[in-house]
Structure formats: C-alpha cells, structure tokens
C-alpha cells in the first residue's frame, strides 16, 4: 500500500518528465529543482496556515513558473535546453532555501514547548568554565519557529484514505491533460513534439509551444513535489535529488509494460511505470543485500537500466521487424539525452 501511494506520486512526477521528454521532445532537467520547489512552497503554505489544497495548487503554479523560465531561457536566449534546465535547477536550489527559510521545513506535527537551547544551557557545564574567567558570556534565548500544529491532508494510517486522495489528484490531472492535449492547441503541441518545423504552417510560434510544453511539464512536477512533501511530512533542500533519472526510468518502465500507446494510455504509462519502479526499488533494497547488492548501487543500476532498454530497442531494429524499427527510430530520436 505504502509503495503504491509513493509510486503514484513519483509516477505523477514521471508524467511531467514524459510531457517534456516525449510529448514536446525537449530533454528538460529542471525537474530536480521544480519538484523541490513544489515541495518547499507546499510546506511553507501549510505552515503559514493555508489549506492543503491551496498549498498544492501553489506548488503546481510555482512549478509551472519554473518551467516557463526554462522555456524562455531556452527559446529567447537560444541556450541549449539541457543547459537552460540545469541553470534553472541550480537557481531553484537557492530559491528553495529562501522559501523554506532554511534547509529543512517540517509540516509541524508537535507544538514546541520551548526552543532547543544551547548545549551549555542544557547541560549546565562543559568542564571548561574555569578557563573563561574574563570572557564568560551570556547568550540570548532562542524562540521556536512554530506555535500551532498544521493540519495535513495525509494521515499516514495506511487505511486507504491517503491512497484515495492521491488517486483523485492524479485522475484530475490526467483528465485535464488528455482533454487539453486533444484540443486544437494541444494537438499543435503534440505535432510540435514529433516535427518541430512542421508546425510553422499552423501559424503558431515554436517559441510559444516550447515554453508552453515545459510550463505544463513542470506544473505537473511541482504538483507532485507538493504532494510528496505533504505526504512525507516535510520538505528538505535535497528532496528533488535524482528525480529526473527516476522519472525517466519510470517513463521507460511504463513503455516496456504498456508499449507506446495512444494518448490516454500514454499519459497513464509513466504512472504505472512509477509504481513498478518504486516496487522494484523497494524489493532491491529489501532483499538485494542477499546477493551483495547495496543501496548505493541503485543509481548505477537505474542508469544502466535506462541505457540497456534504449540500447536493446536500437539493436533489435536491425532484426527486420518494420513496426519495431519505426518504434525504435522514434524512441531513439526521442532519447537524445
């Protein structure tokens, strides 16, 4: 159950990666930053007393803003999209620390009775007092940061209510996205992904489409970041670390299971992939040590997995199956990371 819940939230993040990497065909690395931004904004909002739903909406909104900045830097300043993503991700690290007011911000679950005091105040003595006759000093008392417990939408009781909530949010996102992508501008966006120069005839600027694509992708990523932080009960400066690779692995996992399919299932596939990826990760951590597998090997394994899948598809294209060949070609051209 816990794996399913977390897998779904990670899957939602993977959906954002899917939009940038697959639908608009722009390898966007803002992900690590926009996920963390969503997390930071959501917890900050909850701590300030805003309801959780607004917190999550704000997370999605700021994620979208981050995506639009990457898009603008990429298109208007003609900076390579990979570099643009890395630059925005780097900027967001600093921004996130500002948003959280420090490197770590919990959803307050206990009311502090008094702030943590210095070692000297708590222990009374360090055994060195005799040394400091002249320079003995008194320091001020600190005050604790929060005074109220924030109400979280997740109760972590594994009674299914958290799961329902997550499924609700994801369904809403998928419905909105599939409707939007079937509309005329949505179709143009998808066309832009498969043939960027082809859309010139539609009379819509490529700049607008690229920026829109990255905005939508990071909106979804910010949203999942916000959900994840509330689900985990805290946000941390490092919460987004490695998300883009996890997202990609989930996207590819989804494609292996469901194939490259029509739009609606296409949107579902990264979410399924996310759940499976999370389950495998969990299994590897739990039982992997029996075959000498360490948690620190996970990153190597994930990257090797991505390379292997892309590589296998490429190799099998020489096998002669025409359909497969097309598929691989498309995949290959899509995966110029």
């Amino acid at each position, binding site marked *: 159950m816990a*794996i399913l819940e977390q897998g779904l939230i990670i899957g939602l993040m993977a959906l954002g990666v899917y939009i940038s990497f697959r639908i608009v065909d722009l390898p966007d690395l803002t992900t690590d930053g926009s996920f963390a931004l969503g997390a930071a904004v959501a917890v900050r909002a909850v701590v300030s007393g805003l309801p959780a739903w607004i917190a999550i909406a704000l997370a999605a909104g700021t994620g979208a803003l981050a995506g639009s900045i990457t898009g603008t830097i990429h298109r208007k300043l003609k900076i390579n999209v990979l570099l643009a993503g890395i630059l925005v991700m780097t900027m967001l690290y600093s921004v996130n620390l500002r948003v959280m007011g420090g490197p770590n911000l919990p959803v307050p679950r*206990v009311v502090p009775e008094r702030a*943590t005091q*210095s070692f000297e105040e708590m222990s009374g003595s360090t055994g060195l007092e005799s040394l400091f006759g002249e320079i*003995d000093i008194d*320091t001020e008392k600190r005050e604790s940061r929060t005074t109220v417990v924030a109400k979280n939408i997740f109760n972590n009781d594994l009674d299914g209510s958290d799961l329902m909530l997550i499924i609700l949010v994801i369904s809403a996102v998928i419905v909105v996205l599939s409707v939007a992508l079937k509309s005329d501008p949505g179709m143009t966006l998808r066309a832009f992904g498969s043939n960027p120069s082809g859309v010139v005839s539609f009379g819509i600027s490529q700049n607008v489409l690229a920026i829109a694509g990255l905005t939508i992708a990071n909106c979804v990523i910010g949203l999942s970041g916000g959900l994840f932080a509330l689900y985990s*009960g805290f946000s941390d400066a490092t919460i987004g670390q490695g998300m883009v690779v996890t997202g990609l692995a989930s996207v590819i996992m989804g494609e292996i299971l469901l194939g490259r399919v029509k739009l609606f299932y296409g949107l579902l596939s990264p979410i399924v992939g996310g759940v499976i990826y999370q389950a495998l990760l969990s299994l590897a951590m739990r039982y992997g040590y029996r075959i000498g597998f360490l948690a620190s090997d996970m990153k190597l394994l994930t990257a090797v997995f991505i390379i292997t899948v892309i590589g296998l598809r490429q190799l099998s294209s020489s096998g002669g199956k025409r359909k497969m060949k097309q598929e691989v070609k498309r995949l290959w051209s899509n995966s110029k990371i």
Partner: protein
Amino acid sequence: MKRVLVCLVLCVGVLGLSMQTVGITAIVEHPALDAVRDGVIDVLEENGFKHGENIVIDFQNAQGSVSTAVTIAKQFVSTNVAVMVGIATPSAQALVNASKTIPIVFSAVTDPVSASLVPAFGKNPGNVVGISDMTPVKTQLQLLTLTLPDVETVGIIYNSGEANSVTIREFAKEACDALGLKLIDITGSTTVEMVASLNAQIKDVDAIYIGTDNTAASSIESISKVALREKIAIVAADIDIARSGGLIGFGFNYYQVGRATGELVVEILKGTPPSELETKILGQDSLILFVNTDIADEIGVEIPQSVLDLANLIVTDGVETER
C-alpha cells in the same frame, strides 16, 4: 516471479514472527553517521541483542535521497519492526511521519524541536525519543578567543543546505556577538563550492570555526591545506574534523552519539515505552578537548598552559597522546 515473491514474503514473515527487528536508517553514507550506526549496534550487542541470534538488525541507507528515506520508513512500518532508528534529520522526519505507534529513536539531529520531532527536550508523550548531537558552540568560540586573543573576524564554514549546520550557525552568531567577534559565513553546498568560497574569503578572516557540518567534514583536507597556507587556525566542534588539521577541537565523536542512542534502543527493547525516556544531549563526560601543538607551532600560535592542562588529546611531533 510471483512465486519467488511469495516465498520471500513468507521468509520475512517467519523471521519477523520469531525475532524482533530493529530498523536503522540513515540519510547518507558518511563516516560520522556510520559511526553512529556502529555505536548503536555495539551497544545492542553488549546488552545481549545480537543480529541473527535474537534480533534482526535491518540497516537501510537512503543514499542522500529523501524519497528513498520515505520508502525505507514506510517499509519499516509495513514490516512492523519493533523499534526504528533514524540517523540525521530527513531520515528521522520520514520515520516520525510514517508511524504514530512504533517506537522511534532519532540520532544525530541537532535541533529536534525545529525538525518537529519532539515538542521539547526531556520526557515527551508519544512514540519518539532520541539523542541530539548539539555541540557546545559557545564554549568552542570561547576557546578560540582565549587561545587567539587577537582574532576579530571568525569565518564559519558550513553548508547552508544542512539543517544541523544552520542551527549551529545561529548559536555561533549569538556567541560571537557576545564575545565582540565578527562572524563571516563561508558556505558551499558541495565540497568544490565550499573550498572555492574559502579561497575567496580567507583573506577576510582571522580564524576558522567548523561545526558538525557533513560537507565541511568531507572537505576538511582541502580546507586545512588552505588554512595552513595562510597560517589561520581552525577550531572544530567534531574531534574527527579537528584531527585533520585543526588547532583545537572540543566536542564528542559520533561513535559516542551512537552509543547513547543504542542505550535508548535497548531500554525500549526491554519494554520501557519511549514516553518514559528522555530526549537529551550527550553528557559533559563525553566531551573531549583536542589540541594540536604541531599546528600551533606551524602557524605561530601559543596555546595557553591552562588549555593544555585540560586537554584530553594532545598532538605533539606527529604523535597523539591521550590524557
């Protein structure tokens, strides 16, 4: 695949029935945090709780990933471990958020109140208790002033992305204000950034102070090289950091933090509920004063005899002697 899965689940189920499990998780692999884990495990063994004999110790490292830390926490809860130990802030927070009933012992968290783990130090209702690695910041800066009376500006090296270090920086600021010192932040989120900031700011500082920062601990070899070149003294809160080029160190080592944590785990395994145990810092007896007279000679500093008299560890001519 399915069959293998079922078998595995059964195996764990049977193990779980016959033996209690202690789930230990740390956010990242790091000498200090690994020492905490070793301390916990050693104390468990000394008290007759041996891995594989009467308990199962399940150690999971999140490798720096918060989402993995959350996965680990949920996994511990779903396998219904007897006690969960969370080393460092994010791992502890992930555990505390995952269960309101399973006893949780946190460790190496400097400010558990700001991290929303417990409402205050001491006894608290609920399932959470732990050991803070709060270090005597004020005393460390007093030692600095005593040994280096001409110092006006102190550079504090830390990673502003580490919760523990930000807390220590607050205390350092208060102490510096009271001592009439100017405090300059030398920050970096990676080893490389940190050394670059140090190189850029070293001319502005008369001495360097390092708290219990993980990034600074990883960069200490480079930091001490720069400091020695400029003949600037390093005062550190972590004895292991001080050993790599520091003039003075005053604090404890993380193995002791782990041992204190292990004692709480033992109490809980013996049946004491966490609400009857105290969240605390290490005692005065665990504090170690480290002095390196070789470095003092190299940078032209004379360490007061009064400090030398109280030192527990003194390095002279490359040999460390304990007193």
